[in-house]
């Protein structure tokens, strides 16, 4: 049995060199493009702040925009005693969602119970008559044209 040590050495040396060259090369390239993409994704985009701001910020920033509705909204709405802050926040958010930041939007001026004690007798009558406030509003909306 005779071993061709030259061939064996050549195969082992070439094999290891080529395997390491290929994989080290891939390491380098993948690391490079990894850095490139990481940097690209971490870099604050120029359009980002104005873009990020509009979603939550236009509402607080609304004063600068269509002035009219927000200028009116700026005063704290009159809240009837007994209505909690959370209720006020929810109603304010609902009104905002209806387009308070836009021109022609809604302004929250006051919050009070639909049938407060001591309200006008005819109003109380309506409530007592069994037609809830929302039904009354619907009725008004549908019959107003006539």
């Amino acid at each position, binding site marked *: 049995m005779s071993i061709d040590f030259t*061939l064996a050495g050549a195969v082992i040396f070439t094999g290891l060199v080529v*395997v390491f060259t290929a*994989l080290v090369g*891939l390491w*380098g390239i*993948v690391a490079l493009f990894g850095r490139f993409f990481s940097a690209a994704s971490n870099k604050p985009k120029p359009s980002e702040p104005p873009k990020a701001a509009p979603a939550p910020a236009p509402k607080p920033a609304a004063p600068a925009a269509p002035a009219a509705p927000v200028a009116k909204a700026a005063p704290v709405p009159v809240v009837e005693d007994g209505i909690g802050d959370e209720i006020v926040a929810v109603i304010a958010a609902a009104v905002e969602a209806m387009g308070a930041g836009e021109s022609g939007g809604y302004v929250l001026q006051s919050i009070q119970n639909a049938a407060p004690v001591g309200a006008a007798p005819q109003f109380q009558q309506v409530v007592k008559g069994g037609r809830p406030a929302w039904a009354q509003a619907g009725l008004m909306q549908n019959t107003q044209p006539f």
Partner: protein
Amino acid sequence: MFAIFLDSVGTLIQNCGFTSLSFGQALMILVSFLLMYLAIGRGFEPLLLLPIAFGMFLTNIPNANLYHTLIFINETGHIDWSLLAETGGLLDYLYLGVKLGIYPPLIFLGVGCMTDFGPLIANPKSFLMGAAAQLGIFLAFFGALCIGFTPAEAGSIGIIGGADGPTAIFTTTQLAPHLLGSIAVAAYSYMALVPIIQPPIMKALTTKEERMIKMEQLRPVSKIEKLIFPVLVTLVVAFLVPDTTPLIGMLMLGNLFKESGVTDRLSKTAQNELMNIVTIFLGVTVGATANAASFLNLKTLGIVAMGLCAFAFGTAGGVLLGKLMCVLSGGKINPLIGSAGVSAVPMAARVSQKVGQAENPTNFLLMHAMGPNVAGVIGSAVAAGVLLAILK
């Protein structure tokens, strides 16, 4: 009429397997039963070991004529098409997919669809461990030369250390097709035995402190990186070692199917139906090459011994480079993940996780080990390309 009956019975008895069974065939059938037991009873790589075992069983049934070695292994070194047309059996025709190098790349296509290269992209240093774990291939090559194998045979034996079945089969069909049965059985058996072979070597080469090292969480990898990666790897590896293009090309095509997100149907087909069909054909036909004449000899023992060395040296190479990287990184890399560089996806990565967690139950190395693990697949394909280029 009675005479005709007696004649018929006589012919049947003459042709029946029980009367023409040789000692070698009987022994090979017993070996196939043992492999079936290992696959079914012990769960050793059953998806491949079971078809291989049954192919081995079928090919050793006397007079069944399912597979003819002479069609594929003869003086010309090419397929004997006329003999195939005259005497070809079922397994001869199916074996064409192995001989012509069709099945292994198709398996790689499915593997590519199932592989997430994210951990490797997130930590590209893992490529180095995948490269170091190929040391076993070349040391086993030298060992095989020393015990009397020809260079081409030694190359096929060495590639067992790549711990990658399709790569081993692809290389062996071109370098030493007469050893295909033994090499495939050895490769898949050792791959199944990775959880037994690797841990003692990993523990012997690392300290308790090293095994307890916790690694930083990997960065998230963007979709564009995952899309570029398969094209990039194909470009680099196939241009450097063209002989490995069928394997790397299919592996990366499969991965591109997966990552593109626009070829879900192709990806699902490649990783399920196609892969399962090819696995059946590949397993049965590779098993069929293991007939008594080619399997029951001293060469098989040499292959088994060198295959074990290849695995052991590959594991050691990966772990030792892991240790070096641990030192260079100031203790940020757990050297245990280096052992996963031998491929055997994902078993080797699971072994890294298990050994690491045995020392520190809060340690999670699996994702870190997947990097060297999939780098090992690329590394062994490159090594196979080198062996083919030099020894074919």
